[in-house]
């Protein structure tokens, strides 16, 4: 055995030797091994620090890349043009401006005329087409809405602020390399020059991108927004919360307070724990088979999404609620029963209020999980292109993570930034929910 290792100490040999030498020997042996033991401890600490460092570095890389790609999506480029909608353009055969005649009028024409007025020397048909490409379809819709709301504007010059097409938005943000040959980029030299002229005339401005937060999905990146997905997520989570919280708490209370301890309750407990580990896509398949095919509920509806996510979050809530109930000391129960409360009174008046912060924490964490889920929604048709903002849990809708997935898969370059922006919004929601869980726990949790 090597003499400098601590376990080299042989007690039998030590006892055989004289007392004083034994003491000195032990001290020597301990001292000689001490450096190695300290080194081992320091190494262990370093491993820990490295592990945390790697995790933090990855998190930082994630946030930095998402932020670096996404921040440009929070601003958008708008063009300000004086537009006149002529009376004859929007009037019906009788020369009157009615709601109907406004619905069928072509508002692209006045927009184009306004742009042409800026560049009177552009005449050729293909040149004009190139020029019109600066305007987004959104400009036409905006003009139409303005006139619809206020028909008195017909015939007057109005200063219309409208988004530019996504390619020009990228140009304004310096994300188009104009040094490559003309044939190899989406904007030709004329278009770049026209846009620069507009910038010099101070008609182009950069604004906060409200469209991103107020519109539904769109194939035109400059008109695409996450509001539809946010509303869809809201309805889905509302259904999930309304079903999973009462069911989860009731199940936990019964299992913890009433159920006899036998092999049936053991079996149920094991199954609940197993359910928590089932891959989420399986719940989607179940939703397809049961909610859509047997009950005949509509595809893509937040109601079905909520039902599926309820199944997924139930185990999380039940497990957290049972832990919260377990942490309420038995003395409280006994005291309540001792002063004559019934079992139901004991639970509703004393145990539940004390366990509630823990239950809510578990629920919020379950909800945060459900908010980030896409896989089960794929099977029930929520991975879809939905333009209209859903008006209730029965309307077709999509959810935030699905919107991110769909944008990430779009060829248009402007969607790259929007994808990251949507991820930031989703992360913000998750951080808020988790912070809420922490605050609830900090504020109301009692320790005995």
């Amino acid at each position, binding site marked *: 055995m090597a003499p400098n290792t601590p376990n080299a100490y042989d007690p039998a040999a030590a006892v055989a030797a004289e007392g004083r030498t034994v003491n000195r020997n032990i001290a020597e042996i301990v001292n000689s091994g001490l450096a190695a033991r300290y080194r081992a401890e320091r190494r262990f600490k370093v491993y820990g620090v490295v592990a945390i460092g790697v995790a933090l570095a990855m998190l930082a890389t994630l946030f930095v890349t998402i932020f670096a790609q996404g921040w440009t999506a929070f601003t958008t480029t708008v063009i300000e043009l004086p537009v006149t909608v002529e009376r004859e353009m929007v009037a019906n055969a009788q020369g009157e401006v009615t709601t109907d005649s406004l619905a069928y009028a072509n508002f692209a024409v006045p927009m184009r005329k306004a742009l042409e007025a800026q560049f009177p020397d552009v005449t050729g048909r293909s040149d004009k087409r190139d020029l019109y490409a600066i305007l987004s379809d959104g400009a036409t819709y905006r003009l139409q809405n303005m006139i619809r709301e206020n028909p008195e504007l017909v015939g007057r010059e109005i200063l219309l602020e409208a988004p530019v097409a996504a390619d020009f938005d990228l140009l304004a943000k310096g994300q188009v390399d104009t040094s490559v040959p003309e044939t190899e980029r*989406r904007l030709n030299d004329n278009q770049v020059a026209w846009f620069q002229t507009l910038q010099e005339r101070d008609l182009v401005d950069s604004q906060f991108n409200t469209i991103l937060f107020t519109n539904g999905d769109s194939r035109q990146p400059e008109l695409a927004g996450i509001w539809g997905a946010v509303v869809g997520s809201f309805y889905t989570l509302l259904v999930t919360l309304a079903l999973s919280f009462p069911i989860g708490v009731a199940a936990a209370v019964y299992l913890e307070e009433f159920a006899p301890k036998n092999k049936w309750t053991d079996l149920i407990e094991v199954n609940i724990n197993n359910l928590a580990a089932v891959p989420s896509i399986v719940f989607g398949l179940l939703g397809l088979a049961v909610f859509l095919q047997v009950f005949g*509920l509509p595809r893509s509806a937040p109601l079905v999404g909520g039902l599926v996510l309820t199944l997924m979050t139930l185990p999380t809530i039940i497990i957290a609620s049972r832990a919260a109930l377990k942490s309420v000391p038995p003395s409280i129960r006994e005291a309540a029963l001792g002063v004559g409360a019934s079992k139901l009174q004991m639970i509703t008046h004393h145990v539940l209020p004390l366990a509630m912060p823990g239950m809510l924490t578990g629920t919020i964490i379950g909800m945060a999980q459900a908010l980030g889920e896409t896989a089960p929604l794929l099977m029930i*048709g929520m991975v879809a*292109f939905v333009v209209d903002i859903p008006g209730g849990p029965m309307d077709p809708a999509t959810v935030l993570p699905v919107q991110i997935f769909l944008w990430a*898969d779009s060829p248009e*370059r402007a969607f790259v930034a929007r994808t990251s922006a949507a991820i930031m919004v989703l992360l913000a929601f998750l951080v808020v929910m988790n912070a809420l869980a922490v605050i609830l726990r900090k504020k109301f949790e009692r320790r005995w």
Partner: protein
Amino acid sequence: MLKKTIVLAALATVAAAGAAEARDQIRFVGSSTVYPFTTTVAENFGKTTGNKTPIVESTGTGGGMKLFCAGVGTEHPDFTNASRRMKASELETCQKNGVQDVTEIKVGYDGIVVANDKAAPEMAISRKQLYLALAKQVPVDGKIVANPYASWNEIDASLPNEKIEVLGPPPTSGTRDAFVELVMEVGCEAALKEQKVELGKDEMKAVCQQVREDGAYVEAGENDNLIVQKLQANPNAFGIFGYSFLDQNSGALKGAKVDGEVPTYEAIASGAYPVSRSLYVYAKNAHVGTIPGMKEFIAEYTSPRAWSADGYLADKGLIAMPDAEREKVAQAANSLQPITMEQLKASH
């Protein structure tokens, strides 16, 4: 109290949902390749005609066919997108489930490109060389062996002295199916013929269709945007994806010549570029009249402002069919001429 209200509200919604109401919105399922085009039409349709904007799900061609053929009724979709033609067996399933008449609308073409970073050297490659670079097993000196090629110039001296590194779609993707059919199988036949190797049907399938798994071919997921970003980071790598992604990223990437043809809009439209496929939309005739707007939607999809060479779909990267063919398809589609088993069998 609040909790009670929420529970009651939830129960009420579930009860209300049981009575599924009639649908007034068109529903689409199907291919993720056709998805960007159909959604563009859907959005324009919704904004200009006053109908509700159709819901378009991205389920993949095969998954879409399954849903589409499941039956007639408002719980089933009205259209499906497909990045290949419907199979005769799929029409059979359709008809067995009561979906008797299906209208086929060929909407245009999509090219599959092999592209690399703008800064990298230009590449001209044949389908045979692509096959030799990417197959799991290849014929060498008259024998089938595991793919021995590590760099491009080992296949042919005209190719660069670079490691073979290709990012492409996984087997679940329709783009991958099309690539195997249009490049690998054609290249494989040429290679086998040259080496004078005769193979049985099953063997042929294994040799011609399997893509190597030793790291030279990287499955980059269904997300073509990811491939585009990786190519920009690594100029030595090539990527395989749909033409629309090359079109949208033409400032950063360039397509390799395949069999001497540069993947341009014109070359794919004329059929000169060899790796292109047709894209389809299928309509369920039985739903016309029940679901409002189906006829109008078909009219919008087949209108010149949508699918012609200077329509809005071309802006999104769809390759338009020649005028005469478009007219023929539009006529058949708008009169809801059902497709027959014979037509589908003839194409296989």
